[in-house]
C-alpha cells in the first residue's frame, strides 16, 4: 500500500510540484492550503509523513508542528519543513518544535524523493 504524504503549502504551484514529484515515485499525496487546513486533514486521515511550508496564512509551519506533536498519533510521524527560509535560527526553532528535517526551496524532485524514501521508505 502506498505511503501517504501530507503536503502543506499556501502556494498552489508548489503543492502541484510536490504532488507531481511524489506521486511519480509511488506515494499518495494529500494537499493542504495552510497550517490550519493541514491540521484538520491530519486529524481526519492517517499520514506517514508531513511536508510543510513555514510562512502561511492562518497558521504557519512551526505552529502546525507544535500542534501535531501534541497529538498522540503524530508524536512519531516524521515532519519535514520545505521553505524559502534557510537561517540557522529558524532551523533551530523548527528542530525544537519537532521537525525531523529542513529542505530549502526550490527543491529538486529527485533529491526530494531520496529524502522521503530515506525517512519513510
Amino acid at each position, binding site marked *: 500500500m502506498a505511503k501517504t504524504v501530507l503536503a502543506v503549502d499556501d502556494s498552489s504551484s508548489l503543492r502541484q510540484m510536490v504532488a507531481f514529484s511524489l506521486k511519480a515515485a509511488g506515494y499518495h499525496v494529500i494537499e493542504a492550503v495552510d497550517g490550519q487546513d493541514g491540521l484538520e486533514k491530519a486529524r481526519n486521515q492517517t499520514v506517514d509523513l508531513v511536508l510543510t511550508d513555514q510562512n502561511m496564512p492562518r497558521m504557519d509551519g512551526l505552529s502546525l508542528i507544535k500542534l501535531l506533536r501534541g497529538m498522540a498519533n503524530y508524536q512519531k510521524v516524521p515532519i519535514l519543513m520545505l521553505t524559502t527560509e534557510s537561517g540557522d535560527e529558524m532551523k533551530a526553532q523548527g528542530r525544537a518544535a519537532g521537525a525531523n528535517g529542513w529542505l530549502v526551496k526550490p*527543491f529538486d524532485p529527485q*533529491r526530494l524523493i531520496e529524502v522521503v524514501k530515506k525517512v519513510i521508505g
Partner: protein
Amino acid sequence: MPGKKLLGSQVKHLLSGVSDHGIQHLAEVETDLVQTALLLNEAIEKLGASFIAIHAAVTAQQETIEQLLSGQAPAVDYAAKLKAVQGEIGHHANAAVTGLQFQDLTSQLIDRTVRRVTGLREFLGTLGSGGAGMLEDSDSEQVTQLLSRINEVLAAQNVQLNGVLRKVVKQHHMGSGDIELF
C-alpha cells in the same frame, strides 16, 4: 522661545521620519523587485531549456519507435535506446519542476513589495490627514502637539508594517536548496 524650540524639534523629527521611512521602504522595494527580476529571468531560461530538451528527446523517442516498428534492427537494440531517452526526459522534467517553483518565491517578494507600497500610502495619508488638522491661526503650541501626534502615529505604522512583512527571500537563483535531516 522654548515653544519655538519644541516646534522646531517636532518639525525636524517629522521630516527625518518621512525621509528615513520613505528611503528605507523604497530601498527594500527596489531590492525585492531586482531579486524578482533575477528569479524570473533564471526561471524562464531554465524552463525554456527544459522545454527544448524534452521536445528533442520526445522527437528522438518517436524516431526510435518508428524504426522499431519498421523492423530495421533487432528489438533489443531499441529497448536500451528507448530507456535512455526516457531517462533523459525524466531528467529534464525534474529540471522543469525546479524552475516552475519560481511562482512561490516571486509571489513572496511581490507580496512584500505590495505591503511596503500600501504602508507608504498609509504613511502619506497620515501626513495628509494630520496636516489637515493644522489651522491657519493655530499657535505654535497647538502645532507642536499636532506634529507630536503625527510622529507617534507614523512610528506606530512603521512598527506595524515591519511586523506584517514576511521574512526576506534570500534565494537569488533557481537552483535546488540545501537539505538537512535532524
